[in-house]
């Protein structure tokens, strides 16, 4: 459930200027609107794109968040590689799909 909530937060940050304004004004207050795990919340608080990737955020959502945080394209790709190095394989979501 919380990956859904995490992606919802990032989707709304990407799409909704009001959400972005709230994010910039008081990140903690905005985060309390979403059911996030402690690790997910910490990743958002730290702009940790690599960890967000490992936690399962879809790249089509994550790349816009990374751009918002000031990552140039190659920095974004490197941040995900660093995340894999530091935290291990992607844990959930599309990139962790196990086919039956």
């Amino acid at each position, binding site marked *: 459930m919380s990956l859904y909530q995490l992606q919802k937060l990032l989707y709304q940050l990407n799409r909704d200027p009001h959400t972005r304004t709230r994010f910039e004004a008081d990140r903690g207050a905005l985060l309390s609107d979403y059911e996030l795990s402690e690790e997910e919340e910490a990743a958002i608080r730290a702009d940790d794109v690599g960890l967000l990737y490992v936690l399962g955020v879809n790249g*089509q959502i994550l790349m*816009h968040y990374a751009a918002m945080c000031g990552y140039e394209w190659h920095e974004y790709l490197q941040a995900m590689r660093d995340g894999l190095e530091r935290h291990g394989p992607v844990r959930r979501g599309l990139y962790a799909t196990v086919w039956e």
Partner: protein
Amino acid sequence: MSLVFAGVCSHGPGITGRSEQADPAVRDAFYENFHRMRDAIEATRPDALVVVAAEHFANFFMNNMPSLAIGMAEHYEGPIEDEAWLGIERRRIPGNAALSKRLIERIMRTSDVAYAEEWLFDHGIMVPLHFLTPRYDLPIVPVNINCQGPPLIPLDRTWEFGCALREAIDNVPERIALVGTGGLSHWPATPDSGVINEAWDREFLERWCLGDREALCAFTDEETYREAGQGGFEIRTHVAVAGACAGSKGRVWFYAPIPIFAVGCTIATMEVSEAGLAGNDPSGDER
């Protein structure tokens, strides 16, 4: 009137946003074929362009995800992305709500489809329009197939949707051009961005050009994910166009992997009638 043009193309944001980083020779040959497709569309004097796309969480999210959706508005806006990042200025794009409504009503006789009276275009539609309708003077009917957030519609039902779309197009008085845009193999926005499985792409395009329903629908999502990445799920857009052109053959005008564009860049058309229309150009093969 009927379908007057049918084709498929790539839409990766790097195509416009990272243009300067690509090998100029390959990039320019790709652009040239995009322009050639624009000329072919214009030559058919269409009243509207139906774009079958695979948007990337621009309008639709997992809170309420339609497998199939069609825009029904007088105008649209795009791109949603940062203009500098994508290399395309934000603008209003004309639609035709009445035409959309007639198409949707007809499609609903045989296929389920959601409609949307608001629709923001992301790179999945804006990159093709940048090349194909650069004056933004042709009304667009956007169609979306969910290729991003599984569960995804099966390929055979995507083909059937294409058939329903064709039947609807053939039952409106307007002249309609149809372009599908997506895939093929790619791992967009992941650490594997830039990886391209050319052999898989060419195998897919061979099946597409044959209009072979069984062969096209034989790709499983597991195989596609393994061989073509999550971006490969966007072959649904191409399968829908093939379904809309059932019985026709296709031609690949251009195919080349361009890693900085993160995709095997493709321009291909399906023949749609006897004379003068796209796909019947004797010089139409890949060059």
